[in-house]
């Protein structure tokens, strides 16, 4: 078994284990901090896909931005956020969660079934990509190529998304201000 496979199994075990912990934890703060680990391990999986720039962006935006934002919102909304959690009974298995668990598990079975039926590794375009040597390689030019593509092929989505981001941030700042004018 190559080192790459060992790393893949290790990282996906960390991702899924910490995600399950986030889903099952009763303590909101603890689950947010475990979510950090999920995101870091996901960045590792992106590196295994030879997408190093996406991995760095994942760490900078998700870990540095979104999680800090979630922690801020949690701390600004005060102790009552925790109160919601403490009202629920502390039994390990809650019968109210059974439908959600069932739905998620069945959906997972359906997805895996479809993945094995589709057999994506054998699809023509993947085979073509392997034949035409358009598989990503680790030669240090990937980020260069990505930047050139951003400024040429994907220029319109790039500009649109910057405007969307600005509108969303102004909207968020407008929504979260104190209503003193009323």
């Amino acid at each position: 078994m190559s080192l790459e496979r060992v790393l893949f199994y290790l990282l996906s075990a960390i991702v899924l284990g910490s995600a399950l912990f986030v889903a099952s934890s009763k303590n909101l703060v603890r689950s947010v901090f475990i979510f950090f680990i999920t995101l870091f391990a996901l960045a590792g999986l992106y590196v295994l896909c030879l997408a190093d720039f996406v991995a760095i962006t994942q760490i900078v935006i998700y870990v540095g931005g979104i999680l800090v934002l979630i922690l801020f919102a949690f701390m600004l909304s005060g102790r009552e956020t925790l109160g919601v959690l403490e009202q629920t009974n502390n039994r390990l298995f809650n019968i109210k969660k059974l439908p959600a668990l069932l739905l998620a598990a069945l959906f997972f079975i359906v997805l895996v079934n479809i993945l094995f039926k589709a057999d994506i590794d054998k699809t023509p375009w993947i085979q073509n990509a392997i034949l035409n040597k358009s598989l990503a390689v680790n030669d240090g030019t990937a980020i260069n190529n990505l930047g050139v593509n951003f400024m040429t092929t994907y220029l319109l989505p790039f500009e649109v998304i910057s405007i969307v981001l600005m509108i969303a941030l102004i909207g968020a700042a407008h929504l979260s201000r104190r209503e003193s004018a009323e």
Partner: protein
Amino acid sequence: MITITDFLIVSAALFCVGLYMVLSKRNAIQILIGIELMLNAAILNLVAFGKYDRLANAGQSFALFAIVLAAATTAVALAIILNVYRRYKTIDPSQINQLKDE
């Protein structure tokens, strides 16, 4: 050599954990974390497919777009959650059941 199916199975499992969180949690912030997990599963799919597209880089580009959109979504969603908390003094979505002003 890790095949693309391996990545897709990890991503499907991550998506289902997120789905479970969205369906079962009684706290808006935890539901938001569930949505983030589902978005991350989608981004993992994009990146895994992007490995087979070295020249056009479509997978990685749209993974970056999805990350930026997730940031925008989170900012707006947290602003809405803060407003809801200020008005109703709870962020349990099942207890927020009226639209009119007090």
